[in-house]
């Protein structure tokens, strides 16, 4: 009689629940996972090597393409690293704008995470509801940069430009009559801040709807509670960060512990889990969304009252205002030098890390004094989380692997870099 063998299943790289191009080799005994072996590298684009041949400012758009659902947070880490090397402070208004957009980004990422997590577990509706809210936030991105996915908005020394005074409007089309048009353009009459404030007023209601649909749903709890439990000690040993670490009950949030941008000037709470299971991580993310909403509101208030510069006025580091180029000789030269040669960053090395929606996202930059990085190392949060897949999934069922993937909330853009 042939020996009984375990069942090896190739989960991905083309799998609806793989969140990108995860290839997971699962060794199953019946439906119970005996071994989960993640294979990565299918989305490798060599970002770290690519930026070594680009000027410092040109490396920035590559950051958008790392974790492509938390674009501005990636940019933030990069800007912080270069600013640390340069030893400059950015204007306060830029700090507030960065804080606000970091939180908008956190909402975007958590909404996507929640939506896909629920979709993977079969609750289709949530995904479409979260995408409805994401659409509004994408419009905020679009209003400020023109791009919805890869904004490239932050700059070394500040942000690209101040917040716009008006929102783009829907135009008349065969699908939108005058009445619909009036309805969809209703909250777009004011400035970007008005639009965003309107969103923050609506959002808690939407958030309550997600709670109604999921939090006390018996099926949802059966699928999440006690799945992928990580003890606080193990979470630390495994190098978890972000919601993964806080879900295990360790209160660690860089926004509180090592405040950057304007986080030391805004009020917010850090939610912490108790059991370290998928359900706690879900609750932590849910609460973080409300906190993000709270931070955005505080930033809106401050930004309304305090106009000012949004980018460094050192024209060796940031281009001069465009109007001055045609009338001012020095501005023209600065402009030319900035866009042809770029900025020179003093020799040295710096590590900057931000509280990214998924954990700690770090950029380690080494400069040899040239106009481009000598070496840039990216520390993605998802990489360490994915490494714990085997430990978290072992002994659970096949369906729980999907839960764990959803609760780890990784994106392959930054794992594979």
């Amino acid at each position, binding site marked *: 009689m042939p020996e009984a063998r375990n*069942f090896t299943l190739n989960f991905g790289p083309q799998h*609806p629940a793989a969140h990108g191009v995860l290839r997971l080799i699962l060794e199953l005994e019946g439906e119970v996972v005996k071994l989960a072996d993640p294979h990565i590298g299918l989305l490798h684009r060599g970002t770290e090597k690519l930026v070594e041949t680009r000027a410092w400012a040109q490396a920035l758009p590559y950051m958008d393409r790392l974790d492509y659902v938390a674009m501005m947070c990636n940019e933030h880490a990069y800007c912080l690293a270069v600013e640390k090397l340069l030893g400059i402070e950015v204007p306060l208004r830029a700090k507030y704008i960065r804080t606000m957009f970091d939180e908008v980004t956190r909402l975007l990422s958590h909404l996507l995470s929640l939506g896909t997590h629920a979709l993977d577990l079969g609750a289709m*509706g949530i995904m479409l509801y979260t995408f409805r809210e994401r659409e509004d936030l994408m419009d905020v991105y679009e209003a400020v940069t023109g791009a919805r996915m890869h904004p490239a908005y932050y700059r070394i020394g500040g942000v690209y430009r101040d917040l716009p005074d008006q929102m783009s409007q829907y135009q008349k089309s065969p699908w939108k009559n005058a009445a619909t048009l009036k309805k969809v353009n209703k909250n777009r009459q004011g400035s970007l801040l008005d639009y965003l404030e309107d969103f923050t007023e609506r959002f808690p209601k939407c958030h309550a709807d997600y709670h109604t649909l999921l939090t006390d749903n018996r099926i949802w709890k*059966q*699928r999440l509670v006690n799945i992928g439990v990580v003890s606080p000690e193990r979470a630390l040993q495994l190098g978890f960060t972000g919601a993964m670490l806080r879900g295990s009950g360790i209160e660690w949030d860089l926004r509180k512990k090592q405040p950057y941008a304007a986080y030391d000037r805004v009020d917010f709470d850090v939610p912490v889990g108790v059991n370290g299971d998928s359900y706690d991580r879900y609750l932590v993310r849910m609460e973080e969304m409300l906190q993000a909403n709270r931070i955005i509101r505080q930033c809106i208030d401050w930004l309304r009252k305090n106009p000012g510069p949004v980018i460094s006025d050192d024209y060796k580091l940031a281009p001069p205002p465009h109007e001055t180029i045609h009338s001012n000789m020095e501005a023209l030269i600065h402009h030319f030098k900035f866009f042809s040669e770029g900025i020179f960053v003093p020799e040295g090395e710096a590590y900057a890390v931000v509280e990214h929606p998924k954990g700690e996202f770090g950029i380690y930059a080494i400069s040899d004094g040239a106009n481009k990085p000598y070496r840039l190392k990216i520390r993605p949060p998802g990489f360490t989380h994915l490494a714990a897949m085997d430990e978290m999934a072992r002994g659970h*069922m096949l369906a729980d692997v999907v839960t764990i993937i959803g609760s780890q909330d990784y994106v392959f853009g930054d794992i594979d870099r």
Partner: protein
Amino acid sequence: MEEMIAQFGNQWFGAAWPSLWLVIWTLIKIIAIVAPLLLSVAYLTYAERKVLGYMHSRLGPNRVGPWGLVQPIADGLKLLLKEIICPSWANRRLYFIAPTLAFAPALAVWAVVPFSDALVLANIDASLLYVLAIGSMSVYGVVLAGWASNSKYAFLGSMRAAAQIVSYEIAMGFALVAVLMVSGSLNLTEIVHMQQKGWFAERGLSFLSWNWLPLLPLFVVYFISGVAETNRAPFDVAEGESEIVAGFHIDYSGMAFAIFFLAEYTEMILVAVLTSLIFLGGWDAPFAGLPDSAWWLIGKACLMLFFFLWFRASFPRYRYDHIMRLGWKVFIPLTVVWIFVVGIWMLTPWNIWK
């Protein structure tokens, strides 16, 4: 008209005509049931997409024809024109038999389903038994499909489907035991007739005399088991979109794939109609004074179908072992207890089913 046909038949076929006519007449009746059935299956997919769409704050199909009404036809046409791929390691014969095995029982059950007092293809005495027997045959199609396609995902799907359908068949059967106890018959028409009598029915509120009220737990168990039987969300682990991709029909394409869906939706309609017949009084009007008609049955079935879609729009998917637990540890004990309750109730002077 009838005379003309009889005359014509006798002239051409002589003595063989009466039996030949029976075959022809039965075939006509079958077509009269199957054609509208398939049409309603097609439009059930449309309704599903529309209802899900509105529940998800989007529009659903709205491009093909006015309000997207031609969409199901376009879908069917597309699937008809697609190549049916058979994986090289699959067992060819079983691979192509499987969809048929899934679909045929789903259609065969309709033979005994009454639409109103006289509107039934075969009014057999043990029609409920026939429904149970033929209805559970369709699992063979699913199991064979999973096995024959020789894919690990399909295999897992068919294992899940087999276990799930077998377990829920029991809960479903137990739920029906009480129904046949109170009705004293296995005939579906008779079951509906029994529901038309009672204390409330005499006072004009016939909808309170239907089985759903005294057998409420069984009604719930039966309908949920029905959802599980048809592999619909939240019990769709056999397809398990995000776990085992599409489960047992992962390798099927074109019309072979479509037939699995036809079977699924036919069974959905069947479960809805049976629930309406057994627990919601079938074609009986809810209040006295309103005429009884097949439209009531259709309306009730539509309501039940709406629940199917509603579940799908809002619930997360069960995990496979939780489904088993629900079936074996909750539904089966619950139905057994309620059978006892009903049995004792029937022996007391307060028996309402005399």
